[in-house]
């Protein structure tokens, strides 16, 4: 009798499993990472991925999402943007309810469009506002500050905090982020310092073996600039700094999040008077205690210091989704998005984040500015932009 009962129970639970599996999978909080785990984009995504994994661990320890632990499913787009669409289909088939895509509009968009169609929330750390309601759809969110606001922030900071008055702009004209960054700096700088305070603008391409001509143009200016606003990324960016310093240009060099991190400092070991805006100082001196604690947890989990500040963004994407899903009491993309749209200074680790139905990217959230002196990086503080070009 006892055995039959047990067998019955076993058979019942087996049958229940067979029938219940699909719906159980559908209700589990599964977070997809469709990122560049390999290829040339890999170092850009690596810390964002690590940040997301750390968030999953921390949130699960605190009870998970809707009482269940978050599961991660991964897909490597091999640094090929079109593969992001295959990746989105793959992880959604495996039950993903939200997906983190690579930190660039062109890399993230192909998959995000699929997620949008399948009612799955898409996150990215792209600094391009197109990764949002307007460019992709109501389910796409960027955890970054818009590139258009970062340039303006640096212009205000340089003018007010540093008292610099003459600027020169050097644009690496290869990606849309650098163009938005320099465009926003130049516009805001002319507003606050006057049109004459922008001594000149020049362009180069990231792959250019030499910026000799650009360097000569700026050293030949009648007036010496207090600062050069450089919109670039590695390898072109550090190489440009090395060439400028070698030519005796010792003006301050300011730049955006695309030159975050200290991995390239070997190019210009004794660098001084360099300032970069990013999401938080990984050097233990951020004004936000939460950011410092984040980087400590990061180091503990991965056994090495963070490379760049991008981990904060990967962490915040998972954090935002978990908060919204728990509040919505649902994993459905549209229901979660309805809550995300009501975020009003939501305390994510990347900073207090506000999203609305129209705008799924931050502009005024404080950002950290990191200064470099004698090759050593240290936080200058956190600053918010007051006014920036509309986007």
């Amino acid at each position: 009798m006892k055995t039959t009962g047990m067998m019955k129970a076993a058979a019942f639970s087996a049958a229940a499993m067979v029938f219940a599996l699909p719906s159980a999978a559908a209700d589990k909080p599964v977070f997809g990472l469709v990122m560049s785990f390999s290829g040339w984009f890999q170092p850009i995504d690596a810390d964002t991925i690590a940040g997301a994994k750390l968030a999953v661990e921390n949130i699960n320890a605190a009870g998970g999402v809707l009482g269940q632990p978050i599961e991660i499913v991964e897909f490597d787009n091999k640094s090929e943007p079109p593969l992001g669409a295959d990746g989105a289909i793959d992880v959604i088939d495996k039950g993903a309810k939200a997906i983190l895509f690579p930190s660039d509009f062109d890399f993230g968009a192909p998959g995000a469009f699929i997620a949008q169609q399948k009612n799955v929330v898409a996150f990215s750390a792209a600094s391009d506002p197109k990764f949002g309601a307007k460019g992709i759809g109501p389910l796409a969110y960027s955890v970054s500050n818009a590139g258009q606001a970062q340039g303006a922030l640096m212009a205000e900071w340089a003018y007010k905090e540093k008292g610099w008055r003459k600027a020169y702009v050097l644009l690496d004209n290869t990606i849309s982020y650098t163009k938005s960054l320099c465009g926003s700096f130049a516009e805001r700088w002319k507003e606050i310092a006057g049109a004459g305070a922008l001594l000149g603008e020049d362009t180069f391409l990231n792959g250019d073996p030499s910026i000799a001509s650009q360097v000569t143009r700026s050293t030949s200016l009648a007036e010496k600039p207090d600062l050069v606003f450089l919109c670039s990324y590695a390898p072109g960016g550090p190489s440009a700094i090395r060439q400028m310093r070698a030519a005796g240009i010792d003006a301050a060099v300011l730049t955006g999040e695309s030159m975050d991190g200290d991995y390239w400092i070997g190019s210009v070991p004794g660098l001084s008077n360099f300032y970069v805006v990013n999401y938080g100082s990984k050097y233990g001196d951020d004004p936000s205690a939460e950011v410092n604690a984040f980087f400590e947890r990061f180091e503990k989990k991965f056994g090495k210091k963070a490379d760049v500040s991008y981990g904060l963004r990967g962490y915040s994407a998972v954090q935002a989704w978990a908060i919204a899903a728990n509040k919505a009491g649902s994993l459905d993309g549209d229901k979660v998005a309805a809550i995300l749209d009501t975020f009003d200074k939501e305390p994510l680790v990347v900073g207090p984040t506000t999203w609305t139905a129209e705008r799924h990217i931050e502009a005024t959230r404080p950002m950290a500015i990191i200064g470099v002196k004698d090759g050593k990086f240290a936080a200058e503080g956190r600053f918010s932009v007051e006014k920036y070009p509309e986007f």
Partner: protein
Amino acid sequence: MIERVLQTLVDVVSVGGLYALTALGIGLIFGVMRLINFAHAQLIMMAGYAILVLFSQSVPLAIAAAAVVAILLALGTERVVFRPLRDADPATLLIASFALSFFIEKTMIMLVGSRPKGVDFLPELARQIEVAGVRLQLLQIVTIAVSGALLIATTWFLRSTKLGLEMRAAAENFRMAQVLGVRANRVIAVAFAMSGILAAAVACLFVAQTGLVQPRMGLQLVVIAFVGSVIGGLGSLPGAALGGFLVGAATILLQTLLPAELRVFREVFLFVAVALVLLLRPQGLIPAPGLKARV
């Protein structure tokens, strides 16, 4: 004003020299094998990594290692990839060189990652010196000197040594040279080794200037230098060097002379100029005698 003109001249000659060296390395191989070797970029890149590994210990050692790595890689690829294809048509060779180029680059991305690595190579060159009252960058002067010396050395080798004579003969008419007793394997191997030396020199100058190595380095140089060797006259060594120099010089001049709003279209102007040269002189500026009959 004088200072600006002189500085621009130095910019033009130093960047032109770098491209001329790269184009000469490509031209050497095309001359003897009709092979456009896009993997020349990876010779530069691997030499760059040799510098990265050793520069902090000893500069001469790093330079020697760069040369050894580039020469061995050049000889190795010739032996393994290009020798079996020697009788294949040029299109096959071109595809093979693309495949090789991708293979080496992607292998390096797998092994060391794609993130650029900082190399403060020869920082003593990153300062300025006064020449005739004008402040000039030492590295640019060195680049000009090294490019000039290597161009002269290559010319001397080709004109004054038996191997050089054989190489010129092979470049002009490979089959005829073989019939007359020129040993193909040796001539081709020497050409590859020389292209390796030129690639290592470019790597040293390039790394000293940019302070970085990464798996994709050298690609831009090789693509532009290849265009240069085409307008110079494919198969002609003086043509390759001249074409490389002119294209490099033209990028700097366009960057210097174009008004700000047109500067972003620099490449368009460059390639229109290239197209014009090819329309007016389809064989290139200094046509290779051996190629005329083939076209």
